[in-house]
């Protein structure tokens, strides 16, 4: 009996272990929630009519199971966060009113998450235009989908991938009038039209994160969360196109041609205000030029001194 119990205990531990290791979402079709919420349509038995019914799933409530499995929260089951009562269908109406956990409910004040600096993120976010306009209703989830969240900026080595991931968050509302109106209550021209002034727009959008110009950078935070109002967004090309000489060079070419396109006359060309720093961009050349200059000057001074001495004799 004792042996039997030991085996049973061992087996139960083993199954528990495999259960926690396993993906809840490995088999969506047999998952209590995903069998409906990962599909375009769902079927259920209508008790009132006593019929089998097939209906369309609300597209906003469809979960992408591949993204879900790749997200950081993949080892939580749906009911770890959502009420267990969701397991019955039709879902009770009052469930919609239940408060959901915020990021800080789990991540706040936890040593193991300290490096992600959730509190600092919260502090910065509360200075942002998002919080000012929409207050607490602007939850983290408005940008960071808890279902799919993956720390792309930390894990990816591809700039294009990080940029795409980051910009998608912004564009999910700022390029989607329905979602945008949820927060702002107004409709706006599209992102492309607003950024009409930006040269090579497509390239910029692929290689530069929106937050690069639209946030106040805080050195201690990996990703700045203080999103500025549009009036305060940076529009200074030189912020990026001066530190790096390659970027500076392309800007020089662009501006020069642009100005000439506006005023092609000889006088317009001569009044072109663009300039590019030459050898002083390269520290070694700068030092070399100073050495040559002072050597020449010293030679002249020494020579002059001898001339004066000889003349006095």
């Amino acid at each position, binding site marked *: 009996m004792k042996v039997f119990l030991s085996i049973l205990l061992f087996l139960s531990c083993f199954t528990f272990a495999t259960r926690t290791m396993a993906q809840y979402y490995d088999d969506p079709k047999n998952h209590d929630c995903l069998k409906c919420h990962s599909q375009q349509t769902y079927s259920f038995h209508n008790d009132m009519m006593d019929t089998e019914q097939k209906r369309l799933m609300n597209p906003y409530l469809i979960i992408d199971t591949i993204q879900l499995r790749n997200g950081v929260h993949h080892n939580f089951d749906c009911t770890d966060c959502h009420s267990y009562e969701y397991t019955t269908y039709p879902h009770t109406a009052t469930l919609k009113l239940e408060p959901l956990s915020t990021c800080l409910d789990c991540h706040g004040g936890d040593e193991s998450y300290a490096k992600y600096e959730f509190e600092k993120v919260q502090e910065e976010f509360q200075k942002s235009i998002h919080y000012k306009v929409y207050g607490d209703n602007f939850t983290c989830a408005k940008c960071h989908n808890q279902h799919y969240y993956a720390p792309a900026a930390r894990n990816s080595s591809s700039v294009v991938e990080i940029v795409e991931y980051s910009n998608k968050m912004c564009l999910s509302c700022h390029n989607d009038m329905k979602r945008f109106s949820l927060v702002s209550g107004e409709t706006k021209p599209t992102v492309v039209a607003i950024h009409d002034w930006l040269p090579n727009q497509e390239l910029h959008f692929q290689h530069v994160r929106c937050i690069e110009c639209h946030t106040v950078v805080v050195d201690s935070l990996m990703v700045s969360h203080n999103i500025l109002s549009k009036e305060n967004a940076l529009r200074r090309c030189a912020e990026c196109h001066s530190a790096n*000489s*390659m970027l500076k*060079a*392309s800007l*020089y*070419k662009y501006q*020069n*041609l642009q100005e000439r396109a506006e005023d092609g006359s000889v006088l317009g*060309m*001569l*009044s*072109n*205000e*663009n*300039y*590019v*720093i*030459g*050898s*002083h*961009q*390269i520290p070694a*050349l700068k030092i070399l*030029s100073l050495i*040559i*200059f002072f050597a*020449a*000057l010293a030679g*002249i001074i020494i*020579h*002059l001194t*001898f*001339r004066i001495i*000889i003349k006095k004799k």
Partner: protein
Amino acid sequence: MSSENKIYFYPLWLRIWHGINALGIILLIITGISMNSGFEKSFISFKLIITVHNYAGVIVTLNYLVYLFGNLFTSNKKFYIVKPKNFLKRPMKQAYYYAWGMFHGMQAPYPLSEKRKFNPLQKYTYIAVMYLVVPMVIVSGIGLMFPELIFNKIYNISGVLITAVTHSAMGFFISIFLLIHLYIASIGKSPVDNFRSIINGWHHITKK
């Protein structure tokens, strides 16, 4: 002072060319250094500095054509002819004179005459500056004014950067040339004598 000791060295066209060139290059050096220094605030606006640099650059470039055609079509070109004999020995001798001989009673090894307007060291320097450095600064300057002419990349380095570095490095050599040029010009009958010559055209020579 008899007029025999004077030679009409610098014809009018050359003096005008030299004067325009001198003023233009001084302006270019001052504005060029301002642009490289990174001081955006000075007594004249940064934008004005760039405009002045552009104008002066174009004037000096056009003026360079005067020099080029002047030397092509007048007898002035003969002063630039280099003799292959003692090609290195001759300028070395002149350098020795400047560095040592002139303080020890040595006579100038290549006294100027109707046939010789430049001493060998001077001749070599002028050829290098006027036919190598100045053309390079002009070509790179035209490149920067019309950046579409520049290669996008040369071995992964931006063409604009290479052109800009060439332009300012050559400009720097011209500045050093100017410094030494002005100083050596002061070694004459009197420190201001040579400066007077380039204005009135007459040069004092020492006859043996």
